[in-house]
C-alpha cells in the first residue's frame, strides 16, 4: 500500500504552504487596502535623491552653510554627538541590565519550581501554588508592558512629564530595554538544558540553588551575548532620540537635514555607522574572550 502524503511529511509541507500563501495574501490585501500604486514607489524628485546619496561620497567637517568657516564645526558637533550618544546608551543600559536581571529572575519559575518526582519539595506549598505563579505572571506582564511601548513613544510621554532633561532620554531608553532584557533573560534560563540542574537536585540542592548553580551559569554566555547586541540597539536608539531635542547624533542630523545640508548629514551618518561597526567588533572580541 502506498504511504499517504502525511506519513511522508506531506502534512508539514502542506501546512507550510498554507502559511506562505496566507502571508502573501495578507501582504497583497494590505497593499490594496492602503491603495498603494507601485509606480508611486519611485521618487517624485529623483534629482534630490541623487543629490542626497551623492553627498555620501563627500562628507564634510566644516560648515556647509559657511558658519564659522575656519573651524571644523561639523567635526566638533560629530564628536559631541557621538559622545552623547554613547553616554545616553551606556547610562540607560547600566540601569536596564540589573532591572532586566530582576525581571528575568522573577519572571521564571525555575528558581522556585521543584518537579523532581515530588521527592524533596523544599519550597513552601502555598508559594508554589499561588504566590510563585502570581509573581511570575505579574512580572511578565510588567515586562511586556514596558517593551510594548517603543522608546520613542516613551520619549514623547516622558518629555511631557519631565521636560527635555538628559534623565528623560535615559529613562525613555531604560524602560523598554529593561522589559526586553527581562523577557529574554527569563526565556534563556528556561531554555537551558536541565540535566546539570537535576543532578544538583539529586545532591539535595534547593530550587533557588539549582537556579543559581545549575541553570544560570549555562544561560550566562547567551545572556551576555544578547546584552552586547542590545547595547548596539541602544546606541542606535540613543542617536534617534536626538530628533526629540536630546543632544545625541540625531539632534545634529536633524539640524543639518532641515537646512538640506546633506554633506553634513552624511558626516553624522558615517559617524554613526562607524560607531556601530566599532561597537560590533568590540562586542565580538568580548564574546570571543568571555562567551566561549
Amino acid at each position, binding site marked *: 500500500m502506498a504511504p499517504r502524503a502525511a506519513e511522508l511529511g506531506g502534512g508539514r509541507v502542506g501546512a507550510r504552504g498554507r502559511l506562505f500563501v496566507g502571508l502573501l495574501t495578507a501582504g497583497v490585501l494590505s497593499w490594496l487596502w492602503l491603495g498603494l500604486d507601485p509606480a508611486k514607489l519611485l521618487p517624485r524628485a529623483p534629482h534630490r535623491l541623487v543629490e542626497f546619496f551623492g553627498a555620501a561620497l563627500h562628507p564634510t567637517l566644516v560648515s556647509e552653510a559657511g558658519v564659522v568657516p575656519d573651524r571644523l564645526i561639523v567635526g566638533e558637533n560629530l564628536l559631541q554627538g557621538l559622545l552623547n550618544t554613547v553616554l545616553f546608551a551606556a547610562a540607560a543600559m547600566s540601569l536596564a541590565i540589573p532591572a532586566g536581571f530582576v525581571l528575568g529572575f522573577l519572571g521564571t519559575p525555575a528558581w522556585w519550581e521543584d518537579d523532581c*518526582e515530588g521527592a*524533596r519539595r523544599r519550597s513552601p506549598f502555598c508559594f508554589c501554588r499561588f504566590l510563585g505563579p502570581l509573581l511570575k505572571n505579574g512580572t511578565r506582564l510588567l515586562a511586556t508592558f514596558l517593551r510594548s511601548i517603543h522608546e520613542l513613544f516613551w520619549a514623547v510621554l516622558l518629555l511631557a512629564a519631565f521636560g527635555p532633561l538628559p534623565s528623560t532620554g535615559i529613562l525613555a531608553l531604560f524602560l523598554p530595554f529593561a522589559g526586553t532584557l527581562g523577557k529574554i533573560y527569563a526565556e534563556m534560563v528556561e531554555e537551558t538544558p536541565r540535566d*546539570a540542574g537535576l543532578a*544538583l537536585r*539529586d*545532591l539535595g540542592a534547593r530550587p533557588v540553588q539549582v537556579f543559581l*548553580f545549575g541553570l544560570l*551559569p*549555562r544561560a550566562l554566555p547567551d545572556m551576555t551575548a544578547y546584552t552586547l547586541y542590545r547595547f548596539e540597539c541602544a546606541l542606535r536608539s540613543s542617536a534617534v532620540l536626538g530628533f526629540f531635542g536630546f543632544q545625541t547624533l540625531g539632534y545634529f542630523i536633524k539640524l543639518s537635514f532641515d537646512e538640506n545640508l546633506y554633506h553634513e548629514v552624511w558626516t553624522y551618518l558615517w559617524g554613526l555607522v562607524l560607531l556601530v561597526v566599532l561597537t560590533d567588533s568590540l562586542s565580538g572580541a568580548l564574546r570571543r574572550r568571555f562567551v566561549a
Partner: protein
Amino acid sequence: MGRSYGEVRALDGVTLEIRPGEILSVVGPSGSGKSTLLRLLAARAERRRGSVVVDSRDLGRLEPRRLAVERTGFVHQDHRLVPNLRVAQNVLLGRLGRQGLLASLRSVVLPRRHELVRVHEVLERVGIQDRLFERCDKLSGGQRQRVAIARALYQEPRALLCDEPVASLDPTRSRAVLELLRDIAVERGLTLVLSMHDIDLAREYCPRLVGLRQGRVAFDRATTDIDDDELDRLYRLEQGELIEDGAARG
C-alpha cells in the same frame, strides 16, 4: 518495593538487602528497572509501594530521606556537570544539600582555603588534581566521569550509587573507572551499587549481581554462583520485544 510511571510498572515486588561496605551490580536488559531501583535506593525518587530502610530507619519519613540524599553519592551515566564551571566549582557543588543559599554562594564563588584543599584531595584520589581550575567542558568523557565521582565523594557519602557509570566510555577507560570506584569503596568502606548493562564488566568487578527483568528480581547471588544460561535467559528477547525490535529496525 514498587514504582510505576503512569501505566508502566517499572519495579514490582523487589526485595533487596544490602550490607554496609558491600559492592554489587544491578544488571538487566534496557527498561528492566535498573535506574529506577537505584533512584529509589538513593531516595532520589518516590516509591509507591513498599519501603526503603537504611540503618533501621524507613526513608518514607522526610528527615531520614534528606539524610539519605546527603549521605548517598549518586553518579550519573552522562556526568551531569555544569559544563562552563571549573572542576573545583563542580566538586564544591557536592555539598549544596548541606548548605544554605549564602554559604553555598560563598563556597562556589569564593571558596576558602580548607575547602580547596579538600577538593584537591578528592580530585587527587580520582587522579585529576592537575585539572582543578579547568573548565569542565574542556575535559574528556573519562575525565568528566572522574569529576562526577569526585563531586559524589566530596559529599562524604556512606554509599555510592552509580547509574551506568561507564556506558559512554571505551573499554580501557571503563575498566579504569570501575577499578577506581572499587578501590575507593574498599578503602573507605563505602557501599557501592552499580547499574550496568555490560555483563562482563559487572562480573569482573562486582562480587554480587542482582539480575532484573521486567521490574522483577530474576536472581540475586554471588557472581561466582551465576552461570551463563541464567544470564542468557536474563537478556533473551521476549516474542513481543522481538517483533517490536524488528519493526523498529524495519
